[in-house]
């Protein structure tokens, strides 16, 4: 048995005990996800046991729960919406944070310290409490001709549009993004940027050609993090998009759950797994990045 992350001096018996304890604590998670997995392939489940219509155990395995993939045209529409939301959010957050983070880290301008303090405050600010007034802001934005509610793909930037939801989410994610990006820019040596300026670049070109390529890992981490946040988001689209055909997977699942009884849990679980799958794949392959950004964000925050 290899040593713990710290040298512990624990005896194997003690270590096994700790692992047993940890397993016990983690059990609800394991059982819960196991159930999701089992039930998506069962007609019904009694606890973790798949059953058929008559309730006979270990029967009734089926692929039928996945039939929404080919039978329900809505699923692809909401998937597309979720994808647009997540991608739009990612592009918005990464681009805007990378710009602001650069200026805050590297350009002298009046108000710089103030803005930095502000991002830190907003980072800890309970932004969900502003949902009520953002509702009014979105209704105003909707009144702006064309961009308000007449854009292709995202609908517009106002109330009841995908674009509006994206804008709100970008804003809410921005303080964290700016803070992280600033941290990444802080780490690039000054001489590299000075050299580029002397070589004849403007500050914009330096940002674009010299600095951005050097913080690619940071950008990747922030992108993954933001994409997952967008893909999973429930509350904002639920609050600001009332029309069914514009909803995202998350709100779609919720509508399945709150529909007329009885709810087909197995099918809902299948849709849920369908939504979870890309995130899981992402997570498995990018764990290290995510952890580094989580703890990197902490360094920025604490």
């Amino acid at each position, binding site marked *: *048995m290899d040593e*713990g*992350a*710290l*040298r512990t*001096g*624990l005896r194997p018996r003690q270590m096994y005990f*700790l*692992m047993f*304890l*940890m397993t016990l*604590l983690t059990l609800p*998670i394991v059982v*819960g*996800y196991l*159930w*999701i997995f089992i039930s998506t392939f069962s007609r019904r*489940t*009694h*606890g973790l046991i798949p059953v058929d219509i008559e309730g006979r155990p270990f029967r009734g395995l089926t692929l039928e729960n996945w039939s929404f993939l080919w039978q329900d045209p809505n699923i692809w529409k909401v998937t597309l919406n979720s994808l647009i939301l997540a991608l739009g959010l990612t592009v918005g957050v990464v681009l805007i944070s990378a*710009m*602001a983070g650069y200026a805050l880290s590297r*350009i*002298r*301008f*009046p108000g*710089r310290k103030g803005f*930095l303090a502000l991002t*830190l*405050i*907003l980072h*800890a*600010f*309970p*932004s*969900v*409490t*502003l949902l*009520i*007034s953002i509702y009014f802001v979105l209704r105003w934005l909707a009144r702006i001709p064309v961009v308000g509610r007449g854009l292709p793909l995202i609908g517009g930037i106002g109330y009841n549009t995908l674009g509006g939801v994206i*804008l709100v989410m970008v804003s809410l994610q*921005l303080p964290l993004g700016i803070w992280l990006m600033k941290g990444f820019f802080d780490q690039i040596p000054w001489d590299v940027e000075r050299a580029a300026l002397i070589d004849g670049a403007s*500050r914009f070109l330096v940002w674009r050609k010299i600095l951005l390529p050097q913080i690619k890992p940071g950008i990747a981490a922030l992108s993954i993090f933001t994409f997952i946040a967008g893909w*999973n988001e*429930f509350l904002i689209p639920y*609050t600001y998009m009332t029309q069914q055909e514009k909803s995202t997977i998350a*709100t779609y*699942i*919720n509508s399945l759950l709150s529909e007329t009884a009885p709810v087909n*849990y197995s099918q809902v679980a299948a849709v*849920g797994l369908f*939504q*979870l799958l890309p995130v899981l794949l992402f997570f498995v392959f990018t*764990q290290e990045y*995510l952890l580094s950004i989580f*703890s990197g964000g*902490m360094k*920025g*925050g*604490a």
Partner: protein
Amino acid sequence: MAVIEAERVAVEARPWWRRAWENLRSASGALLFMSPATLLVVVFFFIPVVLIIGISMTNMSTATGFQNWKWVYLENYRRILKHPNTLQVLRNTLMYVALTLAFFNVGMALVIALITTHIPRRAGLLYRALWLLPRLTPSVVYVMMWKYMAADAPYGIINRHILQPLGLATTNLLPIYPWVFVILVNGFIGASFGMVIFTSAIESIPREYLMAALVDGCTPWQRIRHVILPLIRWPLLFVTTYQTLSLLTSFEQILLLTEGQFGTMVWSLWAYERALSNYWGNFQWGFGAALATVLVLIGIVMAVVYMRYFQFEALIQEPKIETL
């Protein structure tokens, strides 16, 4: 030479308008980079904060529409004070925040961080990855999983696999122990934040300290108590303040789990429900805004305190390029 001297003096003692102009010029360079962020912050933070305070002083609701509302000033706040539910919601909120924080967001987070750094590395990584899962799962699916956990026999997992075999009476557990589930649902998501931060804090404790403690004959437990915990008190404080604020304002899981039924209404959900989402379609924006404003004020105060604590000045360095 005299001319140069005069010019030099002129540069040294720049008049205020000259300095203002130079400030403006350098600001315009940064403007290109700052404007999108600034615009969004203004539109989705500044305006909403002002708006919510403004709305909280009106009687705006679906009944009045957007045209016929009136200023009622502090009336909504008086209504909050006199509302029969206020005390209960307040108590609920405090209980919810305190218990979730103590048992999960800080307590469980610390336990996991400590255990997973004391067992083999790979096992530790696996457990931490599992604990991150709830945060990565769409909340709708995640809450559904818990609902199924609590559901009545023969469906519900707890009923089917624990209560039934023991011969106990089965029933849907959610309405009976609503708080247990509210805290579990939120806690299993909330623990991962502190877990990640504590783990990286523990792992970055200089090895010499830890070795020295062992050499001095500390038991692992004594070492945790006297070496590790004191060394991570800063992250502990950070997680506690930060998560208090998050819990105070988070209501998504409760909304999905109970919608505030079974006596699980908390302050933020109350505001949300009143203003934006309820069965009757009667949106009381004014009253909801007043409820939210209370949280906004708490948030602002806590955020400022949090900034004081976490030595903002030390985090910023002056840019070492002065040209644009």
